[in-house]
């Protein structure tokens, strides 16, 4: 079957993308597979200025998952555009920039700068961060803030599609999803990490220096599936599903509950050729299941 997916004008040769923060700037994985065989590459969150991130330790393994509090260490958007983007095969595989900022003004200038870059196929807005201009409330936890930041990015994004990446750390994810849609989002991506922590009773310390971090990996897949299912019924926008995907079968689980495409995140750490393997296995599994088109399968959950 034809694996291609088109969402908001972005053409993907297959629905398997990589998740921000788990695939570096893409180049780190070039030795382990053909980057152009992926549906798309979402790069590490980019801020206007370089960021040092949080103190160590910043990762901890948990049952079937991991916690991270990297704190958005990144080289800054200018160095990304100058040093990394030219090395990426962006003409053959969509490269999606992930935007991180702590206020609306910063998000807007990131969007404006990235929208000018030919090699950037779309902008993904990470709204799982505190808005320092609004007393530190998380953009992703407040529908009003989510709508404002989406609008600010969309206004500067020119022709580039805007993906808003939702946090699962909310009571009703459909409320934030609707707000992002009202703000002009073209695509929604969900879920970001779940807030969590781990401690060591022997030395009475938290396992992360930041104490609290984001849980990811297979442990969170049920939450991701639930969120995609709910949002796909509440909002009429294409959805990119993620959270715990580690096989071609997991990809189809997300598509079955309504996703158009998916991102592979933490599973890239299990082996660096993971995303390439999943993209390669997907057509075999679709054949085996007798799926004839995405339109037939997407959201076709018999519930």
């Amino acid at each position, binding site marked *: 079957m034809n694996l291609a997916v088109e969402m908001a004008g972005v053409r993907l040769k297959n629905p398997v993308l990589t998740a921000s*923060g*788990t*695939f*570096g700037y893409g*180049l*780190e*994985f*070039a*030795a*382990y597979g053909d*980057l152009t065989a992926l549906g798309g590459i979402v790069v*590490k969150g980019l801020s206007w200025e*370089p*960021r*040092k*991130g949080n103190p*160590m*330790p*910043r*990762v901890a*393994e*948990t*049952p*079937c*998952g*991991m916690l*991270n509090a*990297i704190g958005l*260490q990144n*080289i800054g958007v200018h160095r990304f555009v100058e040093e990394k983007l*030219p*090395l*990426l*095969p*962006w*003409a053959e595989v969509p490269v999606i920039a992930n935007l991180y900022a702590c206020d609306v003004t910063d998000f807007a200038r990131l969007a404006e700068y990235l929208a000018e870059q030919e090699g950037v196929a779309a902008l993904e807005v990470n709204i799982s961060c505190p808005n320092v201009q609004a007393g530190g409330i998380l953009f992703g936890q407040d529908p009003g803030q989510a709508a404002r930041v989406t609008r600010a990015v969309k206004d500067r994004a020119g022709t580039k599609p805007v993906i808003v990446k939702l946090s699962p750390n909310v009571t009703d994810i459909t409320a934030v999803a609707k707000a992002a849609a009202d703000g002009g989002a073209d695509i929604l991506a969900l879920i970001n990490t779940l807030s969590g922590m781990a401690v060591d009773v022997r030395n009475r310390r938290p396992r992360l220096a930041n104490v609290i971090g984001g849980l990811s*990996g*297979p*442990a969170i897949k049920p939450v991701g599936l639930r969120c995609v299912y709910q949002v796909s019924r509440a909002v009429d926008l294409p959805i990119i599903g993620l959270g715990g995907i*580690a096989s071609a079968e997991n990809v189809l689980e997300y598509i079955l509950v309504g996703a158009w495409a998916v991102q592979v995140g*933490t599973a*890239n*750490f*299990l*082996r*660096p*050729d993971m995303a390439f393997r999943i993209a390669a296995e997907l057509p075999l599994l679709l054949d085996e299941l007798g799926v004839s088109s995405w339109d037939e399968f997407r959201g076709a959950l018999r519930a």
Partner: protein
Amino acid sequence: MPDNTLMAADAASSPVCREFTVMELRRTGPESGSPAHSPVGPDQSHWLLDLDLTAGFPGDAGWTPGQFVMLRPVSWSFELLWARPFSICMLESGVLRLFFQVVGRGTRAMSALRPGDRVVAWGPLGQGFALEPETSTLLLAGGIGLAPFIGYARRHPQPEKLRLFFGHRPEVAEYPLDLLPQEMPMEASRQTCAEELACFVDDLERRIKEYAARQGLILACGPHPFLRAVQGLAMKHRARAQLSLENRMACGVGACLGCVTETTNQTLPVKVCTQGPVFWAGDVHLGGEA
């Protein structure tokens, strides 16, 4: 337009990721051969693991001692999520040998591997130790930090130029010292109490001072407090020294930013997995954490 210079640009040692077969796993030390028994926690046993690399891995010339591999048994479901990093102990005639100690859940599960089991491994990764054939070189190993020096000494064209000073807490019989070339002089020193540890640090200082005086090269691998001691002494005596860091890692390829360390010459923390694990002693800040 970007082209296929991509691979060459990023992958100096062009690592690979493949599935390999376990040839042999054997326990070193007095109870050699018997399985480790510890229902509650790490038992600190030591093991040599041999993997059959005939299915494509950079060969003898394609790696530098001090480099490492990430390894994850295929049988691990998701309960143990990450692969684990291991120094390359030996990589000779199609066999990759790792020397590891059971220190946690991952290494404990690894000590249950059997011949024929499959593991995923990727590497060789990171930057290895400097190798200067004509320079007198002091190898400082603490405990399991011996592992990369086995390969280093075996690969060195003039092992008589090397000298190994090896500090350890478990019995010396736990360590496969027979794998070291006989031409290399070595001393082993066991520390079981605070006084012995203090003596050991004095011994370290004497040797570091000596190698600093004769423009030698010093290489160290071992637990964090050991590296901090070596770093302090090397700076004090202005010795040329390299340290191999063993930070916790999730991916090993520079993607997760979980293993970073602060340096003296870069504003952003650097990735131990790709820019390290070996650093010049003057370039890294070793955190206070054990």
